[in-house]
């Protein structure tokens, strides 16, 4: 799906932190997620836009929803 593979600007990545811990994030390009190790959360990137909302993040110990 073209929409989910839209890559995000590396500059944007530098400007983002985890909203909970304010720590830096790791970009998982394959999963289209931004990982906050400290908070144990993965923030999804939807349609090229990072969703930096704690209540929409996936706990890292829960498997990612199957790709559609």
């Amino acid at each position: 799906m073209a929409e989910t593979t839209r890559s995000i600007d590396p500059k944007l990545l530098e400007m983002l932190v985890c909203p909970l811990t304010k720590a830096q994030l790791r970009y998982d390009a394959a999963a289209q997620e931004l990982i906050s190790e400290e908070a144990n959360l993965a923030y999804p990137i939807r349609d090229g836009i990072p969703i930096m909302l704690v209540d929409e993040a996936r706990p890292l110990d829960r498997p990612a929803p199957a790709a559609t």
Partner: protein
Amino acid sequence: MVLLMNDQPSLDTAASAAPVTARTDFGFREVPVAEKKKLVRGVFDSVAGKYDIMNDLMSVGIHRLWKDTLIAQLRPRAGEHLLDVAGGTGDIAFRFLNAAEKRGSQEGAPAHVTVCDINHAMLTVGRDRAIDRGILRGVEWVCGDAEQLPVPSGSVDCYTIAFGLRNVTDIDQALREARRVLRPGGRFMCLEFSRVALPILEKPYDFYSFEVLPRLGQWVAGDAESYRYLAESIRRFPPQDELVERMLASRLERARYRNLTGGVAAIHTGWRL
């Protein structure tokens, strides 16, 4: 739109499950604090596609002048980094980039904007508009919460929030977050509907807000309830002087405001010193 203003079942359930839940305003209703965010997002999901047209109708086009005034006061410069919160459709971002470009760039990086909005639908509207206008650089779109910004401390030169602060559940927390992300010497600016300071405007303004506006919302966006919420939320927002006090309490210094159109809107400014 499934935003019910009376006897909303989901709210009743939430309230009975947690009877001691703190409550906050949602327009003129009281709702549990945890619910407001969801309800506000519902409003903007519902209106996203027609938000700008509705703003024109709501303010008789004046919101454009108010936004121009905000940018004129901000005087954007090349190299500056703006964080525009609740700016989903890009109105402030595009004006900022234009103004920065017009003032000419010296050497160094051009100005850039991070647009942060809690609503994904509003952001996609803004990004599509940027593409339509050929703006491909200098702006990034991020979904985030004004109370919990995904932005490093001391990282931005200016913070703007236009017609967004009154939709935030905890205004003081949003003000503290604004201060956190500003670099020392950085400026905070809030454009928001405010208290009419001209008595002659009061009655027509009330009539317009509560009688005309919801009908316009129904007619243009098929959604009277969301626009009724907008009108109500304006009246619940702290008046000019109270907002100044709350900015100072959040250590946004030299806080002041200027009224626009007789106080229908106001621009508040403060600094992180």
